[in-house]
């Protein structure tokens, strides 16, 4: 992390479990990270690794009644959100932390116009009259580069393309000038050329407002383009984190390494991709030791017995793997 930037959001040993009839699903199982002003942290992993649950726990939006934060802290500018009441949280969401979800269709109400929905969101933030709110809404649309905002205000979500809808969701998310934006795969439902437009827009908003961004994705291309730092999650835990360049150049956790190698490249032709055999363990029935051990080609007895602590690799770069443990002589 850039030491010069003040920390806006800090997550400390967060554990969020889901209590289901199949057992306790340890979706987030001891996750820690910090996010500085104007910084983008990529949270990367496969579906079911706990990355979305991490985002939802920060906002205290875990599915009820199954989900519960059982341990840890979420510090927003020093205030712990975990102990806040629901009423207090409502003043945090949208104003201090916002979230953009994968499918804009689920974030917008199909029976109200885009203008109504924007005004509704703005009414929570401002005490202006209807006229002024409507002006603010138009302005918000203009800021996310929606063409002809006056006309778009009267449009219903189904009359807009996916990219346009996601811009409206973005406009609502940043309307309250939040300090933190959690973007959960915001471009997965969009076409590539539209994706690039949207990512560029998010970067512009960030440059203007110094937002701290938590970018949840499984796409290394997006990580390379958007993120200052990356945290790789596997089965509920962060297994490696570091500055983006360091992580791409020198991935040290066998999972990070294997995952990066298994992604086909646009820019090079390969005869055969190395693949990771097997699949992630179910989160309600995790192995005792390292959770990647059953799929890891380097795993030995200790890996299967004991979960490795996090070892430093380089500046702000660390991994939870016995193989990167510094030898006693070098300590």
């Amino acid at each position, binding site marked *: 992390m850039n030491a010069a930037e003040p920390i806006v959001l800090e997550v400390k040993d967060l554990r969020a479990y889901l209590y289901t009839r199949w057992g306790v699903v340890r979706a987030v199982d001891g996750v820690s990270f910090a996010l500085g002003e104007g910084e983008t942290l990529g949270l990367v992993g496969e579906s079911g690794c706990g990355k979305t649950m991490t985002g939802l726990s920060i906002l205290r939006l875990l599915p009820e009644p199954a989900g519960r934060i059982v341990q840890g802290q979420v510090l927003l500018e020093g205030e712990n959100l975990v102990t806040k009441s629901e009423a207090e949280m409502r003043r945090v969401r949208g104003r201090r932390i916002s979230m953009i979800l994968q499918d804009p269709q689920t974030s917008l109400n199909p029976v109200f116009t885009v203008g109504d929905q924007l005004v509704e969101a703005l009414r929570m933030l401002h005490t202006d009259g209807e006229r002024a709110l409507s002006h603010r809404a138009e302005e918000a649309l203009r800021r996310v580069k929606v063409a002809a905002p006056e006309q778009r205000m009267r449009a219903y979500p189904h009359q807009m393309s996916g990219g346009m809808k996601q811009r409206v969701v973005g406009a609502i998310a940043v309307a309250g000038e939040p300090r933190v934006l959690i973007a959960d795969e915001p471009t997965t439902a969009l076409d590539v050329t*539209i994706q690039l437009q949207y990512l560029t827009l998010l970067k512009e908003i960030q440059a203007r407002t110094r937002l701290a961004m938590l970018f949840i994705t499984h796409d290394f291309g997006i990580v390379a383009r958007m993120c200052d730092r990356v945290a790789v999650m596997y089965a509920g835990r962060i297994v490696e984190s570091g500055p983006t360049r360091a992580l791409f150049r020198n991935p040290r956790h066998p999972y990070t390494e294997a995952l990066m190698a298994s992604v086909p490249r646009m820019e090079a032709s390969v005869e055969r991709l190395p693949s990771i055999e097997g699949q992630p363990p179910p989160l309600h029935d995790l192995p005792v030791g390292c959770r990647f051990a059953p799929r890891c080609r380097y795993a030995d007895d200790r890996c299967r017995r004991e979960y490795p602590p996090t070892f430093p690799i380089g500046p702000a770069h660390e991994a939870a793997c016995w193989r990167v443990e510094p030898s006693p002589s070098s300590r």
Partner: protein
Amino acid sequence: MLESGAIAVEPLIRVEDLTKHFPVTRGLLISRTTGQVRAVDGISFTIGRQETLGLVGESGCGKTTTSRLLLRLERPTAGRVLLDGRDVHALTGADLSRYHTRVQAVFQDPWSSLNPRLRIRDTIAEALVVNRRVSKAGKLERVEEVLHQVGLPLAAASRYPHEFSGGQRQRIALASALASDPELIVLDEPVSALDVSIRAQIMNLLKDLQARQQLSYLLVAHNLATVRYIAHRTAVMYLGRIVEHADTESLYRSPLHPYTKALFAAALPADPDAPRDDMILSGEVPSPIDPPSGCHFHPRCPFAMEQCSRVEPALKAVAAGHVVSCHLY
């Protein structure tokens, strides 16, 4: 069957000037047609034996409609799909049954293509029974054979789809496609619903199966890296037309059409130090109901010239096996 004597071997699939328009209607009782969605607008290509053709493009470009036309799930408005020189939409009786054994499909979401109430062996055997007369013993033998081919344990045969993960379900979908010993499999986004760490497994399996079973594939995908990895040749579609078509290597090394360039530039390389030659297109793909005149791409094209809005560019060969439809070339 020979065309001007130049081609000695008839390719497995030959698509000629294929067109599919869907009428846009208005009114419930007295409906009238107010326009045509020109989903596929006169495209031609071939797929050789043991060859993979990739179809890429953004949503609404017509790639899925094209695959549905090949599968006989839609009837073309004009043009033909020839399998071994015979029009697949004119087949009847025994020829039609044979077509169904020769052409199979695997779709994006293995959930929707597997019946949750059927055991895996019944799902796979169903594909056999429908298309062929086989004895009970022969059926079981074939089920075991295809399960083995896709790398699933024999025990999988007596289980249900929900007991499997996404990657395994896609293997099952492949197994049932393989059951009738097809020559062509249409793959519509076969890995995009799968997890990153599982995709490479399935893509490698597809390659292995192609080599072992002499399969041809039509691969419809939006992920350009996936297509580069699997396809021998690639066609880029925009608003119902093929704008560029070439050997995959040649296309990825030197994309020529401005749309192909923009599409490729928008795909983000997994490398923080990759050069950023962004070519951000303005606007979105126009509606296929009333596509722009001339070259469909001209309103968004940074190189558009005066004639682009008037004259539709023809597909021109610019190098061996590389055709492009653009007035710049």
